[in-house]
């Protein structure tokens, strides 16, 4: 089944189109990565898919058109975003942030958030240690873990991750991508925007290269990682991440 499909997606700020007819597809249970230079429109694409930015074209999520579905209702259906800026609630504690991640489930009458909270703490033991601290006091890696954990509290079916490795130490980047792989194994579909193209392609099933608001290349991640143009432009010499 197709988890997410966007057809001919166009987003314009003023006269210029930042996205100019983008088509992307995420199969259920797959990791799809989106690589490309700064300003290619990767973040804009994720914001349009979540409904935070108005877009022309069509977006369907597990076969359902999303045209009249608000950001919040998409979250309630399990379409969740972990944005580049993390957008945490700085003045609230780590556990409050996580609890609010399950807000849409709470609104539906689910009251078993404690179990989900335990699962997140098992996945990110560091967050358990810091659970009473304000989110604003966390380090970069901890903030990313909290942003991911908060999204997991919503019981997502499709996670959109924007630059999950940005500004993190190599060891933490490795851990984050390990967690991303495990999420797929648990049945979550993922669309990952990532500057660290090699790290993204190594865990992905499929990938798109976005340049100047258009998809310039796409294919199985294992093919793209060996594509000379991708190597020259985005991968360079092999290096550890």
């Amino acid at each position, binding site marked *: 089944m197709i988890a997410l499909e966007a057809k001919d997606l166009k987003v314009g700020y003023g006269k210029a189109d930042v996205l100019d007819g983008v088509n992307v597809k995420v199969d259920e249970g797959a990791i799809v990565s989106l690589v490309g230079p700064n300003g290619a429109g990767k973040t804009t694409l994720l914001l349009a898919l979540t409904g935070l930015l108005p877009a022309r074209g069509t977006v369907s999520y597990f076969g359902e058109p999303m045209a*009249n579905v608000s950001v*919040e209702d998409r979250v309630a259906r399990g379409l969740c975003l972990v*944005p580049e800026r993390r957008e945490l609630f700085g003045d*609230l504690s780590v556990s409050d942030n996580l609890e609010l991640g399950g*807000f849409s489930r709470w609104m539906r009458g689910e009251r078993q958030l404690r179990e989900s909270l335990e699962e997140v703490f098992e996945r990110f033991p560091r967050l358990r240690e810091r659970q009473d601290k304000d989110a604003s006091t966390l380090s970069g890696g901890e903030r990313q873990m909290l942003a991911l954990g908060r999204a997991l509290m919503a019981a997502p079916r499709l996670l959109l991750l924007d630059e999950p490795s940005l500004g993190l130490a190599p060891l933490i980047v490795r851990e984050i991508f390990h967690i991303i792989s495990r999420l797929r194994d648990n049945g979550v579909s993922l669309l990952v925007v990532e500057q660290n193209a090699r790290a993204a392609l190594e865990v992905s099933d499929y990938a798109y290269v976005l340049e100047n608001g258009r998809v310039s290349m796409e294919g199985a991640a294992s093919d793209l990682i060996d594509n000379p143009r991708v190597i020259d432009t985005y991968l360079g010499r092999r290096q550890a991440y």
Partner: protein
Amino acid sequence: MDFQIFFFLLEDGIANGAIYALLAVTMVLVFTTTRILFVAQGEFVTFSALTFASLQIGLVPQIIWLLGLLAVIAAAIEIYRAVSDKDFKSIPGTVGLYLVAPFAVIALTIWIAPLGAPMLVQAAVSVAIVTLLGPLVYRIAFQPVSSGSVRLLFVIAIALHFVFQGFGLLFFGAEGFRVDPMIDASFEVGSLIIKAQAILIVGTLALFTALLYVFFGYTIPGKALRATAVNRVGARIVGIKPDLAGKLAFLLTAFIGGVSGVLIVSSTTIYYDSGLLIGLKSVLGAISGGMVSYPAAIIGSIGVGILEGFGAFWASAFTEAIVFSAFIPVLLWLSLRSTPNEEGHEL
């Protein structure tokens, strides 16, 4: 001034300050969650006070028709939206939410008005009418422009103040109202006399402060409101609808405004236009905490009440001038130590 007069003024000032503090807390709540500096909050107080006074003399308060009108408009907007979005499933819920509760309260009011119901029932009905106005006002006046600039939202709040004041004159007339204290008793402590009504008002502030502390600190809706105040985008991506947070904030603010109204009308004569000064004095309290801090807003508001009490004693003609002038240095100090932020740039 002897000690007895000093204490009397202090007691009066603290009681008035407690009312301003209740309102200031809701001003901060509304501002942080919706970015609206809701100066029309004072009108919720006068509406509640005058509704309570009308019920006491056996009259049906005409404000129920405003409640009915706003309920019908809000329901019509919601049904139109549901039909345009082909979201037919939400229509029964909308009708229940926007029409059933307001019209039930309207029917109850018409029924109890001539009966001379107990004072507490009349107070509860007055508070209920005003409480329901809150989310309706948000739905009609603010939700369509909720992502607009702070300036736009402020202008709408000012416009609402004038509209409400006009309705106040229409419904309650130009005469002022004052009712008997809910508890007409006083206690003597040595040579000092403490009025039970003052204890009731300060006790209400303490109770609401405690309830709000629990609500914001330990409940999911309370945390969701705080989250919306801290980070609106963050709130949206966890599924908290800003408009739901706005309606909840307005429900709380109208409820507290309503409670303040039934408390204040037994210690001060309230006119249809008393809301502006009450609202502005609450704004003074709220800005003492930079529009973000609840404890500072409470302390600042008590300060406003005390200053008002002593100002009225020394130079009654200049009471308001004294109160508002005293806050100029506070504003200067706050503006000098504040750092520009995104919202500030927008202003």
